[in-house]
């Protein structure tokens, strides 16, 4: 089985030759490019070169497009800050109010440089790995997208204190979200992974998630012509996990937090969706490779009867100072476990 076949079988809940595994190595690929980080996050050829090297070196079963969500903000005029060893971050919004946003013309997904970078990275990678390794784009859901337009503080303020402004923003952003996400699917993304910020327990109340956020997500997701993976967004997913049960079928999976209880998650969500679950990605650099193998094996043991589990590096991107052998240890664990 190649990675593409393995992932398709996993989504269908069928037997595979070994458990599928993946790790968020979007930034890590820059180590193999001999280019500045600014080039890495602006030139899709450079980014793709890094991800091709990731595939050759680590053999992950899913590759990711740029995990650089601030670039969506850039398309709306936001000022970014670039770093030597991590993705660019949102620094300052250009748009200060809902009224300003409503008068701001949509970024053209056919010509805006930041959007084209995201799209072209997917085009290059999916064409290179055609039917061999699936490539997931990384983007934002429509309720979280304004974080990259207004900044988190302002958007939370609008959400809490100006409900009319919140819904006017949604009316504006949902068509953009649908156009961008469907474009990424058309460009070759096997699915689109989205961190979950406003629909999780770290940010808003359960009632707000269930009554305000989820109905918008369900409606918007149903208009996407491909699979969506909802990622835990940095906090445990379980507290509101039951509220995602009736999301559309194209939400094919959930990226869990490493502190979540896998069995409970499976019981809540049912048998039909994929659960990506495993070890913590950002602190992987602190571990020894043997420990990584052992931890992964324990997880694989506890999920062995579950065909819709993918071993995963949870949380955000794996840091560049992580030893390669710690990442290779994930593959070693899945290979050992299948023997």
């Amino acid at each position, binding site marked *: 089985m190649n990675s593409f076949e393995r992932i398709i079988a996993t989504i269908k809940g069928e037997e595979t030759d070994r458990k599928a595994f993946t790790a968020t190595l979007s930034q890590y690929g820059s180590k193999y490019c001999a280019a500045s980080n600014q080039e890495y996050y602006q030139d899709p050829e450079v980014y793709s070169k890094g991800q091709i090297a990731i595939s050759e070196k680590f053999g992950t079963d899913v590759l990711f497009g740029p995990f650089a969500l601030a670039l969506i903000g850039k398309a709306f005029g936001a000022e970014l800050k670039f*770093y030597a060893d991590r993705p660019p971050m*949102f*620094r300052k919004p250009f748009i200060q109010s809902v009224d300003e946003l409503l008068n701001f013309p949509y970024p053209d997904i056919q010509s805006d440089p930041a959007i084209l970078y995201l799209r072209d990275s997917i085009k290059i990678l999916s064409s290179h790995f055609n039917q061999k390794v699936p490539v997931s784009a990384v983007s934002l859901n429509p309720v979280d997208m304004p974080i990259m337009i207004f900044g988190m*503080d302002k958007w939370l303020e609008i*959400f*809490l204190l100006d409900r009319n402004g919140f819904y006017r923003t949604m009316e504006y952003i949902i068509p953009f979200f649908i156009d961008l996400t469907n474009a990424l699917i058309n460009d070759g993304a096997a699915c689109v992974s989205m961190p979950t910020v406003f629909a999780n327990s770290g*940010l808003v*109340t359960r009632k707000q998630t269930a009554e305000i956020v989820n109905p918008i997500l369900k409606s918007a997701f149903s208009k996407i012509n491909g699979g969506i993976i909802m990622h835990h967004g*940095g906090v445990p997913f379980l507290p509101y996990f039951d509220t995602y049960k009736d999301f559309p079928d194209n939400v094919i999976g959930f990226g869990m937090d490493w502190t979540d209880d896998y069995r409970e998650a499976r019981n809540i969500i049912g048998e039909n969706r994929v659960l990506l679950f495993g070890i913590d990605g950002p602190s992987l650099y602190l571990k020894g490779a043997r420990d990584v193998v052992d931890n992964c094996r324990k997880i694989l043991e506890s999920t062995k009867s579950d065909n819709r589990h993918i071993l995963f590096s949870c949380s955000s991107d794996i*840091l560049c100072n992580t030893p390669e052998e710690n990442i290779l240890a994930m593959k070693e664990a899945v290979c050992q476990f299948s023997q």
Partner: protein
Amino acid sequence: MEMDIQQELLQAIQDADLNRATKLLTGWGDLNGYSGFTDQILLPVLEKYTLDDFKRDGSPLAQGYVAARFAEIAINLVIENTPAGQALKEDKGPIVIGNIEDDFHSLGRRIICSFLRSNGWIIHDIGNDIPASEFVEKAIETNSKIIAVSAMMYSTAINISEVREQIIRRNLEKEVKLAVGGAIFNLRTDLVNEVGGDGTVKSALHVPKLFDDMLTDLKLQHHE
């Protein structure tokens, strides 16, 4: 009557409904005036919320935000209605607070500032994306005994260790405490030690108590 409004305010905060909380506050103030508001209403409500928050092992940021904004609105109304020269709370002294270099997530910091202010601390808020040396320089300049550094993500939180190094380099270990916080510290309990922090808490509501304890520790160290 106090119990009723306390309960209603608590519910409004737990529902993250600032409009309702503010209406309750001004309604009570119009009827009773604001002179007894801090002791009879605000502090008991925040205390109860803090206790509930502790039992729940943390709350959504929206609740903390509403509680902080509510405290801010309440304190401002009390100040507007307090005769000049009459102190609101005991002056606990200055502290320096900011987000570490490369971190732009100011919401948690702003919430903490509101709670600290309502507890009598003088706040020197130096903003987002602040290099380690600036925290220590500001603490020296303002004679602050506590430096509070916030970071949301792991990749930026590790920059806080440079603040600890600056404290050591300037021989201020017995003069200044380093409080650290932000979402990532709730998820990684060992991170506070990794970056050289003297303490952290799970929620902004618990920060005033942490700072009181830190100040007591410093006084004890001086007596030893």
